[in-house]
């Protein structure tokens, strides 16, 4: 049996939820003040994901950087691998908001897109 603690962020109360798992399956969830916390903690324990935002270097642009984001949340364990790829990437100006800057970052199946225009 494995026990993990998760702080629920669905509402400002921030309940400390404890999730017990056996062979990857949830057997018990305690500490949440409402049902939403149970659902949130289940996802956090089985498949935690985060939206990644960063910047990518721009060649010949009006600014040296373009801000970027992952179009969907990516698995948490791929955050640093994704950052490595993002930091190796160079794009040439002009860049438009929504342009794909890194496709399928770190094999996550999620694209990194520009969040601003760079002339």
């Amino acid at each position: 049996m494995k026990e993990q603690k998760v702080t629920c962020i669905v509402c400002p109360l921030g309940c400390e939820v404890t999730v017990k798992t056996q062979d990857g399956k949830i057997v018990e969830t305690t500490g949440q003040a409402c049902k939403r916390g149970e659902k949130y903690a289940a996802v956090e324990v089985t498949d935690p994901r985060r939206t990644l935002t960063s910047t990518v270097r721009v060649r010949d642009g009006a600014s040296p950087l373009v801000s970027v984001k992952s179009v969907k949340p990516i698995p948490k364990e791929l955050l640093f691998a994704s950052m490595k790829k993002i930091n190796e990437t160079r794009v040439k100006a002009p860049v438009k908001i929504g342009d794909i800057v890194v496709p399928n970052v770190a094999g996550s199946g999620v694209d990194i897109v520009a969040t601003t225009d760079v002339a």
Partner: protein
Amino acid sequence: MKADVAVIGAGPAGLAAAIAAKENGAKRVVVLDREAYKGGILPQCIHNGFGLHIFGEELTGPEYAARYIDMADNAGVTFMMETMVLSIDEHKVITAVGKDVGITTIEAKAIVLAMGCRERSSGALMLPGDRPAGVMSAGTAQRFVNMEGYMPGKDVVILGSGDIGLIMARRMTLEGANVKMVLELMPYSGGLTRNIVQCLDDFDIPLKLSHTVVKMHGKQRLTGVTIAKVDENLNPIESTSEFVSCDTLLLSVGLIPENELAMGLNIQMDSVTGGAVVDSDMQTSMDGVFACGNALQVHDLVDFVTEEASRAGKAAAQYKKIAKLFVNTIAGSGVRYVVPQKLVRDGIDKTLFFRATKVTRGWYTIARCRGKIIASRKRVMCAPGEMENLVIKDADISGGVTVTIEETKT
């Protein structure tokens, strides 16, 4: 030059005010900003979490700004960028200095103050020790990393658990820095739980509550800080002091409204918010001068900045010099301040914005008029870091309105 509405600041507040002014019939709307780019502080806030209230989706700062810049351009707003406003006089004549125009004056029928806020600096903190390089505000670091592509250091300590500090803890960690800890003077964090989880817990960065920096070390470059626990009176406990080596100290210790222009005008100020005293049309004590956004009160959510600024822009477009009937709002028990400070009796329902003085769970926010409850809400939690609001009906206002946060509703 002449303008129907002149807006100072092209951040989210200035943009929304200018758009609303246009929508409400102002012909010539001019926005002045000292920066070369529009959007105020948003272009450097590259993380997501903006616009959930207004757009129902989580945008990044630059994306949120882009939507309003497009709307302003489409509405026919005139921008004067790289133009710093130096002063405003009592006849609403603005003096500004611009890159292309030199010194220029604008005669405005109405003016909207939307200059945003600035960060409290280390000078304001009076830390003993030398002033080595490597000590800066979290917002300055944000600008270095996100706009200039330059990492200000490798081993980082952050003082203050405000949201900008938390966001920068994650950002610098992702860029390869070793963020050692975040120190918070108070026994609770000033940032959102969501940011504590996703910016600190995710990367195992400790948050030390009731801790502060008591000394900085290093001559040219910062080499470390001495930290200590504080007692209930927030005084450092000497026996708990310890040395932490670091080359960078980020300060995220609060924001103050930018209001040199308002003070130059002798507008009545609120010593608690640091912004002007306004009525429910967002008009200051000077006729035809309105205020909104972080220049009025420090906001945590940009969505509320936009809404507040839209009201200011609309009122500026419709501005006529008339005598108004006012009642005052009063911050009662458990409430630090209430904005607006004055309510105009005009038949329109009002939203009151206020902040709690302490953390409470399951208490009520209550608005009373002549001892009678006219609005209330039970809140799972109230915290000084999160702005509260209550909507009251104009018909229920028969005198001053007092807002309180109480354990029971009686």
